[in-house]
């Protein structure tokens, strides 16, 4: 049976790879929702908060293509994605608070945040949060 089920690491990174290879996808981040730590990240996304921070560290803006490495956080863009993760994490937490204020027995299933440039698709779970940033094509 073990051979039927692929190695969890592989299937995880394959899933992330497939996600990030979809057209328009800019970045994917998996966050631990209790600790807020980044479990996995790929792609490149520069937050304006990171830009201001990057003025100090000039090396931060070396772009690199998405990696399929399931464990390693990218050395170059990880700080950007960490920023993104921090912002998203804060956003999810405040939304959770909003939902629990509205109905304490309710919970978030999906957050789709459309901006003029991007769409953030956030799937919060009990323990983890999956975030995908993709560009809006066309309009």
């Amino acid at each position, binding site marked *: *049976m073990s*051979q*039927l*089920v692929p190695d*969890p*690491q592989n*299937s*995880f990174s*394959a*899933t*992330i790879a*497939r*996600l990030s290879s*979809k057209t*328009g*996808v800019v970045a994917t981040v*998996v966050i*631990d929702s*209790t*600790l*807020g*730590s*980044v*479990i*996995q990240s790929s792609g490149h996304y520069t937050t304006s908060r990171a830009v201001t921070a990057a003025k100090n560290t000039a090396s931060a803006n070396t772009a690199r293509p998405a990696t399929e490495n*399931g*464990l390693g*956080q990218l050395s170059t863009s990880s700080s950007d994605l*960490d920023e993104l*993760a*921090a912002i998203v*994490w*804060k956003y999810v937490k405040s939304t959770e608070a909003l939902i629990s204020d509205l109905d304490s027995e309710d919970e978030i*299933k*999906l957050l*789709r945040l*459309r901006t003029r440039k991007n769409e953030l*698709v956030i*799937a919060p*779970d*009990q*323990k*983890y949060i*999956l975030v*995908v940033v*993709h560009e*809006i094509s*066309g*309009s």
Partner: protein
Amino acid sequence: MQTRKDEILAKKAKLAELKRQRELRTRELISPSPARAEQDRQKLDDLIKNLVGEGSRPGSTGPGGAGSPAGKSSRPTSVVSTGELSNENSESATQGNRNSQPVSISTQILSTAPLSTVYEFQPSPVKEVFSYSKGVQTTEDWGTQTLKPRAFSDSEGEDDEAQLSATPSKRLSRREREREEEIRQNLRKEIEEELKAAQSSVIDGPLLPSFQNTATDNFPARALTAEELNAVTSSEEFMDFVERSSKVIERALDQEYDILADYALSGENGMDNEDDEYSNTRGSKWRTRVKEVAQFYDERWSKKRMISALDFSPKFPELVLAGYTKNPSAPHDPDGLVQVWNMHLHDRPEFVFHAPSDVLAAKFSPFHPNLIVGGAYSGQVFLWDTRAKSAPVQKTPLTGAGHSHPVYSVDIVGTQNANNIISCSTDGVLCGWTVDMLAQPQELLNLTSPPPSKTEDLCPTCMAFPKTDPTFFLVGSEEGTIFPCHRYDRAGSKAGVDQRVSYRGHAAPVMSMDFHPARGAVDLGDLVLTTSLDWTVKLWRVRAPAATSTTGSLSTESASFSPVLDFTREDVVYNAAWSPIKPGVFSVVDGAGTVEVWDLTVDTEVPISKAQPSSRKDGRSMMSKSLNRIAWEQTEGKRLAVGGLDGAVTVFEVGPDLGGKDSAKNEEWTSVKKLVAKVESAATGSVNSVNGL
């Protein structure tokens, strides 16, 4: 445990010390009066009584404050009590000791065992702290936790010694005790919270020494170490999360319609193309077009497999299942495979199911949206559940009862409350199974060729049930003849192949049969469409089983019927299926890789429209173009899934004249009926005229 033992030892020592002191004191009381024994004894008794009175009064109130009344005074001898009580709270131990001397034997019967259990659970939270990794506790918490009981017993001990005179201090200590209790409660609560937080944040592996409760408040807490990452990413829970959430996100990304589309904006994209297409092909052609809308192929699983089965979910019209044969170049992958594709999820299957042998037939259960039945090359019948993992939830045994030859057709017949899985293998064995139990067939029927044939052997290649009758069915054989069969004994016939009737016309193995769905004004349920390797599609009208029995009684000769209509194609025809909505529409796939849609009400000579699945990037060679299976989406009749040798499932959408809800008019039904009647009468007329000549 060690610390606990130490504690007990220390207590024992202390108790022994106390006892010795007390003995000394009593000796002092007795020693000054050796001469007048009688009176002195009286005095002494009084004194002792006094002492006892003094001793027991605060004793009974004192422990009462700590939650254990009266019982304390009935403690047996000190030796026993210390032995027993040292397991418990120190406070009760000293209490017991204090009253030990004057207690008589009779009171020993009053055991305080049930009361002692009250105390037994109290140290348990403290114990938890012991067993818990010390690194987690901050030193401060740790200190107070362990010091508390110690301080307690100390004050208690002092209390005891000064007991006769000092009741205020006793009260004080009680208050103190209450406060301690309160603090302890708080601490316990705190620890529990901490534990919970720690457990929920760290799944496996070592706990973090620097973990703090406040970590959740300020982000980014810290980066996980490689070990922790490993532990997290390989945990099943995490895999479930990835599986679930990525599906949701992919569906979200695959959603084509942009809900923020602004139609007031000068339109230059998207909508125009569609408009062009419409305007260019306006007229009759557009209304009968067959347009490809999706193609499903998974690099990991679909590769080098052939599609052997297709079926749309009756409950969720966006789901289509595909059964696959084995991938000869991947011996470690499971041979059989069923993938459920979602129209809204393009890049990956919604579900993947495995089987130990090539899947040759698969079908959604029409009575339970979660269940999928399949037949395999090994002769096994599988049952998969979309709520379970990829392995079949049930399967028939490989040996013993059941099939020993490949099962090319399965069906689920009956009603919502009473349905059976029917499977048919190429050695002529037909089995009926209950959905709950696949260990043994509920019924087993051996199909044999009726007398005129040279051998008894019958090799059914396909099987079809009419939509209304679960006891009657047709089997198509390898020789090309179609036999009607009964599942049970009837008035005029035995179970098995009906000896008197056969449908002859195909000259090569029959590849598929499909009864007309008949959901309209006129009953067309007796029309059957068959395909064969002899490059033809044939339309038959099947005689009702009751009618055949009466004709059988009239003529003992076996009657052979010929097809109503014959459609000759340019290649072997693998599969044909009636539209679930339009009475005259059916679709056909052939060995050349063409999908054809016919409409009997419009034309019986040529198909209304044709299409070919687009070739995938990595190329379909000429050899792999052939299409094996076709299936209609059941509720609307607008979509059509085809699949073949190259393992890709292609979904087409048909124009409004060929499908779609309430597009079927009543006259279409009657016109099909009329057509069949006309063609049939013409055929019998010609036969009669030939006979007449």
